[in-house]
C-alpha cells in the first residue's frame, strides 16, 4: 500500500473528469454525514450513530460500478457512501438518524439500516452475515428469470466471514454460478476483535479458493482501483461468469459506533500508523496533483457538501416522529392480532 509521503499517480481506468469529481463528492458527502451522526449523538439529539470513516474509497468506487436500475445492493450497516452512491438521497441518512416517520422504515430501523426497494437497496437486519443468503436468493431470481445484465452486490465486514451463513451463501452462489459479487470491506476490526483473532489467514480472499470462485484483493483506499476491480467482477456476474469474492482492504478510523470506545482495545499509535491510508485526503491529492481539480475547486466542493448536509439535517430534524399507533402496522398484510 502507498506510504504517507507518496501520492499514487492517477490511473483513470476509463473514468472521465466528471466521474472522478463524482467520486470525490461521494467520499466527502459520506465523511460529512459520518461526522454529522457523531456530532448529533454527542449533542444528545440522536441516541446512536455508526460511521464508515476509512471506507469511503470502497463505497465510491463500488457505487460507480453499480448499474442503477438493474443491479441490487444488499449492504451492511457500514455502507452510507455506497447507499447514497447508488442514488439514495442524503436526506434519508438523516431521516434514519433522527428516526423520523418519513424514513422509509418509518423510524423502525437503527441508523444505516436502509431500505429502498425502488433503488434495488434491500432491507437488512443487524445480524451479521444473515443478509447474505438473501443476496444469493435475489441473484437466483435474476438467473431464474434469465435477466442478463443484472447482478447483486453484497457487502460485509471481515468479521462476517466467520459466520456460517457467509460460508453457506458463498457456497450456494458458487454451486449455482449466480450473478453476485461478494465484497468484503476488511477494516481489520470486528468491534474489538482484530483480524488475527477472527481468522488464521491474512487475506479474506483466500477463502474464495475453497468455494471454487475467483477472488481479488484491492486497496480500498483507492476508489479508482476499487471501481476497476468491482466493474470487472460485476461485469463477469452480469454476463453469466458467476460469483467473485473481492476483498477491499481499509481501516476503521472511528470506534465501532457511538456506543463503543476503541481506546479500550487499540492504541492511538495504531490509528496514526494507518492515517496515510485515509482515502479522502489521498484522493483529493490525486485529483489536485493530476490537474483534474484545483484546491479551490476542492474547497468549494467541501463547502457545498457541508451546506447540503446542514440543509438535510435541518429538514430531517424538523419532521415528526412516527406516532405510537405506527407500532402495529406492517406486521403482516392485514391484522397483527394473533387471535382471530
Amino acid at each position, binding site marked *: 500500500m502507498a506510504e504517507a509521503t507518496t501520492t499514487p499517480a492517477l490511473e483513470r481506468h476509463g473514468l472521465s473528469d466528471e466521474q472522478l469529481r463524482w467520486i470525490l463528492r461521494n467520499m466527502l458527502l459520506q465523511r460529512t454525514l459520518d461526522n454529522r451522526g457523531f456530532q448529533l449523538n454527542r449533542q444528545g439529539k440522536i441516541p446512536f450513530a455508526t460511521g464508515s470513516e476509512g471506507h469511503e474509497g470502497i463505497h465510491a468506487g463500488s457505487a460507480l460500478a453499480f448499474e442503477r436500475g438493474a443491479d441490487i445492493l444488499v449492504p451492511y450497516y457500514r455502507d452510507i457512501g455506497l447507499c447514497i452512491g447508488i442514488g439514495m438521497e442524503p436526506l434519508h441518512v438523516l431521516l434514519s438518524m433522527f428516526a423520523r416517520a418519513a424514513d422509509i422504515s418509518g423510524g423502525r430501523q437503527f441508523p444505516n439500516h436502509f431500505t429502498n426497494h425502488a433503488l434495488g437497496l434491500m432491507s437488512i437486519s443487524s445480524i451479521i452475515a444473515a443478509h447474505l443468503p*438473501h443476496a444469493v436468493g435475489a441473484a437466483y431470481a435474476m438467473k431464474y428469470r434469465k435477466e442478463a445484465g443484472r447482478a447483486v452486490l453484497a457487502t460485509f465486514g471481515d468479521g462476517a466471514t466467520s459466520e456460517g451463513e457467509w460460508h453457506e451463501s458463498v457456497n450456494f452462489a458458487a454451486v449455482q454460478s449466480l450473478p453476485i459479487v461478494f465484497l468484503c470491506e476488511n477494516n481489520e476490526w470486528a468491534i474489538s476483535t482484530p483480524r488475527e483473532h477472527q481468522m488464521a489467514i491474512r487475506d479474506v480472499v483466500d477463502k474464495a479458493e475453497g468455494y471454487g470462485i475467483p477472488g481479488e484483493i484491492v486497496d480500498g483506499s483507492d476508489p479508482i482501483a476499487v471501481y476497476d476491480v468491482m466493474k470487472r467482477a460485476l461485469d463477469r456476474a452480469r454476463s453469466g461468469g458467476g460469483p467473485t469474492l473481492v476483498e477491499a482492504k481499509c481501516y476503521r478510523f472511528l470506534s465501532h459506533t457511538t456506543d463503543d470506545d476503541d481506546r479500550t482495545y487499540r492504541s492511538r499509535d495504531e490509528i496514526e500508523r494507518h492515517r496515510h491510508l485515509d482515502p479522502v485526503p489521498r484522493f483529493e491529492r490525486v485529483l489536485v496533483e493530476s490537474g483534474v481539480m484545483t484546491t479551490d475547486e476542492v474547497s468549494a466542493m467541501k463547502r457545498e457538501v457541508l451546506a447540503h448536509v446542514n440543509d438535510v439535517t435541518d429538514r430531517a430534524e424538523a419532521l415528526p416522529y412516527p406516532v405510537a399507533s405506527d407500532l402495529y*402496522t406492517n*406486521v403482516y398484510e392485514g391484522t397483527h392480532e394473533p387471535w382471530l
Partner: protein
Amino acid sequence: MAVASPSTVMNNVEAVRHTLYEALKNDERTLVLGEDVGARGNVFLITKGFIEEFGAERVIDTPLAEASIVGVAIGMAMEGLRPIAEIQFADFIYPAFNQIVGEAAKTRYRSNGDYTCPLVIRTPYGGGVRGALSHSVSIEALFYHVPGLKIVAPSFPSDIKGLLNAAIDDPDPVLFLEHKKTYRLVKGEVPSGHYTIPIGLADVKHPGDSLTVVSYGLYVHQAIEAAKRLADEGLSVEVIDLRSIRPMDRTTILASVRKTHKLLIVHEDNKFGGIGAEISAMVAEEALFELDAPIRRLCGPDVPAMGYALPLEEEFMVSTDEMAETMREMVRF
C-alpha cells in the same frame, strides 16, 4: 396426476404432493428448494418426478445447509418469486432459526412494507415413528411466539390442500407443519381444482355437547377416535382441529367452550410453555365463568425428546386410551 373428477381419495403425503405439483404447474414464480428434493424426490417421495417435469432450476437440490435454504428462499421471496422451502425434518430446522425468526418474520415489519417475504417453509414433524431424538420433535411452540410468522399444522388431506394453497398465496411467511405419522396413515377425499382454506380457522371435526377437546396434528385423529368411543358410551365430546397455530381461532374455541363448559387441550409438543398454555390463558381471560371444571392439558412430557427404544417412545406419546380416559373423567366431573 390431477384427475378431473370432483374429488379424489388421497393420503396426506399425496395431498402435499398434489398441491405442490399444481402450484408449480400454475405459477412460474413458485419453486421448491431443499435437501434431496430433486433427483431423490424428497425423502418421503413428495416431489418424486418433479425435477424431470419442472427442471432443476425450479426443483432445487440445495447444499446441505438449512440456514441458507431458508435464507436463500427469503431473498427469492423479497425479489418476487414464491419459494417453497423444505426442511427435511423439523428437527433440522434449528440452524435456520435466525433466518425464520430474525429475518423472514421481520422483513415486512423492519422495512415498513417496502419489502415483503411471501415464503412457505414446509417440514415434517412429530413422533410415533421410531424417529428417536432427532427425527421426532414438535417445533411449533418455538415459533408460535413470533409475530410476523404464520404457522399451520393441518392433518387431513383436504385441509392440507386448502391450507398449503393458502400458504403459497399468502403475502407473509408461513411455517407449514406436516405430521409425518399421518403421511400414509390418514386418507380422505380431496376436492379437485384450486381452493384455499383461510389461515387461522379451526374446524369442528367431531361435534359434541359435554366437553371441548382442542388438538391438532396426529392427536386430532386419536381424539376423534376417543370421542367416538365415548359416544358409544353415551358421552358427547366435541373435537376441534386447530389446523392453524398462528393466528389461532379464538371464536371457534370460545363458542365451543360456552356450549360444553369444559376444555381439554391435547398436543404432542411438551406441556410447559406449549400451545395449550396460550389457549388455557385465553379461555381463562375470556370465559372463566363459563367453565364447570378445571382446564386440563394432555401433552408430551417435559423431557428433551422421545427415545429410540419403543417403551421410551410410547411413554412420550399420549395414547388414544389415555385420551379417552381423561375425556371420561372430565365429562363426569
